[in-house]
Each structure stands twice: as structure tokens, then as C-alpha cells.
């Protein structure tokens, strides 16, 4: 079944990105400019996103895909999710990429006995509103970390205009999260015990640049097979399955609200 998707005309960057992503799912989605759409892409990076989401629901859309987070607040997102009767999905840059989700059970099995979970994320310098960029980066990073340690809470070791360092502890593991503005758009993660050291590099500079996920142990190195699919494509595919096959969403608006709340605790909520 092919679903019609209306893009968010108020955000050309996000719409352009997702137009390309949707073009890689031609049997499942078709972009439409018409008034009726099965799914409406709503940019969470532009003010007024709640109104656009409510309008989409009122117009009969079956689902909303939220993309971008810099204008979202956790409380408004939760309120929308509570009042909305249609499917609300979100598309994080890293957390639901197939390379990562297929590696999560392997890494999760090594959580007991690990000493360190350390991650660093870099996002392109927007030139203005650095805090918004860092809040969005941290939201993405928390989404990834919570696939391994659900509900993990953090304390702030450092939060400034262009970088942050957070620290937490769960199940005996020292967890650190760092982020900064840079030229590249990537997330690195290490999960380390004395016997096994996982390293993951997840990339968002190019749409489908494959994640690099490797394990080093006494036998040498093992690199997981590359997957040339972005997390955004995986999110759309999951939404299609949710609508057409009643499958569960892999990343919901409520999850996004939880991850956003963790970032807001450091950088405050987005200005509304």
C-alpha cells in the first residue's frame, strides 16, 4: 500500500531531506502536494509545529512524522501526544538506524561487567543559537544511549555555549556523554570491559553513510556488516509498517519527549 505524504512547506531543509528519503521508499510512500495526505511531515525545527500537527490531524491524516527537534518542547510534545488520536512518530538521526538497532542486543549483552560507556557527538555549527544545536545533539545522543540503558539519568559536568559533558552511572558502568559544535555530524560510542571493547561510529553527514560498529577482543577485531540505510529511512519504513500492518513504532513521540526532557534539563526548553 502506498501512502501519500505531505511535506512541511515551512521548512525547506527538512522537507528536502525527507523528500530524498521518501524517494528511496517508492512502493510505500509518495509525496503529494494535495490537501489530503495519509501522513504529514511536521518540522520540529520550526515554530508553530503544534498548530501544523493539529491541522494535519483535523484534515484526516493517519499519522504525523516529526523531524527535527530544535523548536520542540517535551511538555508540548507530551500534550500533543495525549490529545492526538492519530499516530505520532519521530525520526532521530541515529537511534533507530538498522546498523545500530541490530548491534544493540550484542552490546546490551556486554553491559554486565562493562566499566565504561562513553559517547561523543558533534553537530555542525549553526552559527547562531548554539544552545538549540547542542540541545538537539544531546537529544539524539540520549536516544542512542537509552537503547542500551533505558531510563538512564545524567548529571551535568559541563554545559557551555559550544560543548557539554554529562556523567551518569548505571549497572556499575561509568557513563559519560560529550558533545560539541564542529564541522562533522557524527556520534561515537565506546562500551568497554576488560575482555571486550565495542566502538560505534554513526554518521549523519551523508544520508546513508554506513555506521561503523566493531568489537575488539582477545581474538582481534570484528566489524559488523555495513548497512547503507539512514535512520530516517528506517523510521519511515517503521511508520509504514505501523499504519499498514499495525506494527509497533520503533521511536514514538513519547520516547522523543523523554529524550528531549533530558536535554532540556541541561540546556533549558526551546523558546516557544
Amino acid at each position, binding site marked *: 500500500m502506498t501512502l501519500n505524504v505531505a511535506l512541511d512547506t515551512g521548512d525547506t531543509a527538512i522537507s528536502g531531506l525527507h523528500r530524498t528519503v521518501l524517494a528511496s521508499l517508492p512502493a510505500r510512500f509518495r509525496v503529494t502536494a494535495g490537501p489530503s495526505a495519509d501522513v504529514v511531515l511536521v518540522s520540529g525545527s520550526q515554530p508553530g509545529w503544534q498548530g501544523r500537527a493539529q491541522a494535519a490531524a483535523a484534515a484526516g491524516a493517519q499519522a504525523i512524522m516529526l523531524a527535527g527537534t530544535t523548536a520542540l518542547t517535551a511538555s508540548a510534545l507530551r500534550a500533543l501526544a495525549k490529545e492526538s488520536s492519530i499516530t505520532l512518530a519521530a525520526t532521530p538521526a541515529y537511534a533507530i538506524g538498522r546498523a545500530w538497532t541490530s548491534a544493540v542486543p550484542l552490546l546490551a549483552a556486554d553491559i554486565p561487567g562493562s*566499566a*565504561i560507556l*562513553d559517547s*561523543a557527538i*558533534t553537530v555542525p*555549527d549553526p552559527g547562531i543559537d548554539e544552545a538549540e544545536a547542542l540541545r538537539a545533539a544531546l537529544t539524539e545522543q540520549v536516544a542512542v544511549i537509552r537503547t542500551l540503558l533505558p531510563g538512564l539519568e545524567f*548529571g551535568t*559536568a*559541563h554545559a*557551555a*555555549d*559550544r*560543548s*557539554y*559533558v554529562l*556523567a551518569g*552511572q548505571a549497572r556499575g558502568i*561509568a557513563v*559519560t556523554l*560529550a*558533545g*560539541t*559544535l*564542529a*564541522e*562533522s555530524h557524527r556520534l561515537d560510542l*565506546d562500551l*568497554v*570491559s*576488560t*575482555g*571486550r*571493547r565495542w*566502538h560505534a561510529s554513526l554518521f549523519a553527514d551523508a544520508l546513508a553513510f554506513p555506521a561503523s560498529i566493531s568489537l*575488539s*577482543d*582477545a581474538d*582481534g*577485531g570484528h566489524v559488523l556488516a555495513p548497512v547503507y540505510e539512514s535512520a530516517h529511512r528506517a523510521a519511515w519504513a517503521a511508520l509504514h509498517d505501523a499504519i499498514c500492518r499495525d506494527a509497533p513504532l520503533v521511536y514514538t513521540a513519547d520516547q522523543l519527549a523523554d529524550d528531549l526532557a533530558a536535554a532540556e534539563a541541561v540546556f533549558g526548553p526551546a523558546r516557544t
Partner: protein
Amino acid sequence: MSKPLGVGLLGAGPATQSIHLPVIASLADRLRVVKVMDIDAAVADQVAARCGAAGTTDVASVLDDPAVDIVVVCSPHAYHSGQVIAACQAGKRAVLCEKPLTTSIEQASRIADASAATGVPVIVGTMQAFDPAYAAVRRHWADLPDTVTLIRSIIYLPSNNLMVEASTDPVTAAPNPSASLPHPPNLRDAILGLAMHAIPLIRELAPDLGSVSFARLLQPWGYSVACTHGDRAVQLIGFMPGRWAPDWTLRAWGRGQELRIDFPPSYVLAGSATASLAAGGQHRSWHYPHNGYQAEWLHVADIAEGRTAPGDDLGTALSDLASAIDIADQATEAGHQETS
């Protein structure tokens, strides 16, 4: 051609056997080992015999030997200050001391006084600071120190024994039944023992590491520390021993610049680090066949022969040591708060 400089080694443990002897062998036209001292006579004699030197258990025998131009202090940390000072007072041409120079500011001050009074240069063996790739990228990073916002020193290492066994046939002392058990791991020792390597490099990017905002001791051995100064953060993570490949990196991010340096592990002559600098959409990298130990020894030889002025090597080393001790003490306090 002038006669090679005579080297006397105080302490004949893993650093002497697996680092200094192979490096000195690679610079045979400049350096030769004359004396090897160790408290274990058998170790001293065996190690000395391997390089055509004389073995001794007597520090004075090394310091009083006129054939010894350069004294290398490779003994346990607690002996460093006394031996460095004695070597200065013996009027040697240079002293190379393994890191950390000492474990207290007071001892470091006494070393500085001895070096100043005798005119004997003291160099601290933080090999990464001499790494040719690091030196090359440092010449190109322009205003990175002015704009850096995040620095990460991440060191994951396997057991030192693996590296030592790959670089020498180790001679070990007989077990001493009366020796005390090793101290349980603590943040201070971990920082002064391993994070100390990164301090001279970080100092070039961030002269003031600021205050420790987070510290945790890692088991079986390691640390995770965050320091902040204004809008800048420095993360220090070190962990060992692992049964996996080593991974030793220093990364820094500033406005429009990203620095990454991948260092080889200690003990081995595995070439230089690989340093890369991304700026303005361009990416440059540096790598050389010789490593920081070799560059360090060339520097020491140049100083001993008067080809290079020692500059403020010791002053810089003391400043680095003071930073490391400050971080170690703050981290210990913060670590206690974390766990209490």
C-alpha cells in the same frame, strides 16, 4: 666523529629494557650505555651485559662514573626526586627522568633548585610530547588553542606486559616475599601514572585545565575525569588492562577545526602517532616512521652535546606536573564525593 655519549640507567625494569635500550641501540652513533643500576644485582648484571655495560646496585657508582654523561632515572616514582637531584649534583650533562618527575610539588621544587644551581638540564620522558606527528600538527593548528571547546584524551590499553614482551626478553627480579602488596587502585596514582602522558599535549591547547567537575575511579584500573574552565571542557579517560587492541587518542574541537591524534601504545617502536587536522573542509594528516621515544632521545642527546639549548623544558615539566597533581587531588576529592 665525536664519541657517543655515555648513558647510565638507574632502574633496570620494563621501561629500561623495552624502551630505552632499543632506542639507544637505534642511535648507536650518538649514545652508548655505560652503566645499568638496579637494586637487584642479577637484573642489573643481566641487563647491563646485553648492552655491553657494567651492572651495579650502587647509584653512586653510576653518578661517580666520568664515562656517564647522561643519567636516566627509571626507578619507582618515590626515588625520582632524590636520584634526579643527585645526578644534577654529580654534574652530569643531562638527566632524563621517566614521568612523573615526582609526585609532589615540594620535591619538584627541589629538583628545579638543583637543576638551576648546577646547570644540569632535566628532561621528563613524556614521549608523546616529542612525537613527530604531534609536533607537525602543532605547527599547523593555528588558532585552535584560542577556540577549543572540547578536548578528549581517551586511553584504552592492554596489559603493559604484552608490550614489554613484544619489545624485549624481559629480565625480572626474583619475587620478594617481604614486599608489600600493591596498593589498591586509586585516582591519584591512575592520573599521575597514565593521564600524565596527556597533560603536556593538553596544556598546549588549554593552558589551564580548570576545576574537576566529575571524577570516577574505574575498576580494575582507570579513571574518568571531566575538567572545566570557562566554556571549555577536558575529558580524561584511561582504562586498563584490556584483552583487546590498544586505542590511545587525543581529540580537540575548536571553531572550524577538528584535531585527532592516534598514538601507538607505550614500550613499542611502532612509529609515530597519526595526527589529523580538519579545517575549512580540508583534511591533513601526518605520520612518521620514528616515534616519540626516538625524538625524545635525540633531544636529550642534542642538549647534552650543547647542540640545543634546554630552554625551559624543566619549567614546563614542573608546570605540567603541578597541573596533574592538582587534577589528581581534585579528582580524588570529587571521586570520594561521588561514591560517598
